[in-house]
């Protein structure tokens, strides 16, 4: 996929730098997301004694993820920003619909969905959006 160019590709020096920084930023973001998901799952299950340290870990990990995402946005050129904008639009609309669905589930069925599901859903939708937006330009 053209969006995710591997650092070793035989491109120009600058394009290689772009790709390397992007891969690193994405790696930080996805690792942080995974760790946050684990921490959030543990917070929901663990007894109160362990919640505070887990919450602290989750906050640190979430901050790292946010920094990674911010770096990812910064290292893109206008073409990739355009792809990313479409992915964000897709994720926003999807998350909005999901939030409404969760609210309706709560109101009519009385079934509560964990509040951590929505950010995870956003990340998944954003990733899907990036994949399909990038494919459009191939």
């Amino acid at each position: 996929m053209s969006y995710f160019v591997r650092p070793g590709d035989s491109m120009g020096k600058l394009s290689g730098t772009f790709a390397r920084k992007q891969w690193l930023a994405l790696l930080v973001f996805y690792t942080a997301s995974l760790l946050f998901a684990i921490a959030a799952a543990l917070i929901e299950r663990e007894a109160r004694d362990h919640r505070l340290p887990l919450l602290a870990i989750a906050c640190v990990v979430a901050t790292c993820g946010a920094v990674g995402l911010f770096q990812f946005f910064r290292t893109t050129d206008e073409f990739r920003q355009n792809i990313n904008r479409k992915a964000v639009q897709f994720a926003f609309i999807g998350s909005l619909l999901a939030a409404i669905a969760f609210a309706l589930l709560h109101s009519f069925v009385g079934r509560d969905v964990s509040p951590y599901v929505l950010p995870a859903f956003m990340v998944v939708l954003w990733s899907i959006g990036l994949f399909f937006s990038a494919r459009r330009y191939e």
Partner: protein
Amino acid sequence: MKTKLRVWRAEKEWSQADLAEAVGVSRQCINAIETGKYDPSLPLAYKIVRVFGKTIEETFLFPEEESPASSKKKR
């Protein structure tokens, strides 16, 4: 939008990566512009044409049927 980037590049014997490096974008960006899948911003368009010593009008060919002025004339 059609462009003459490929022609200008061929004249200089530059690869897409060379041009990408010269204007500070990714090679994929140059490829998307050349294939007409992406329209560059005005600042990027200026950067590109300055590299080749050409004008925007010479390099980027805006199709007449898409221009708002021409669609008004048709009405």
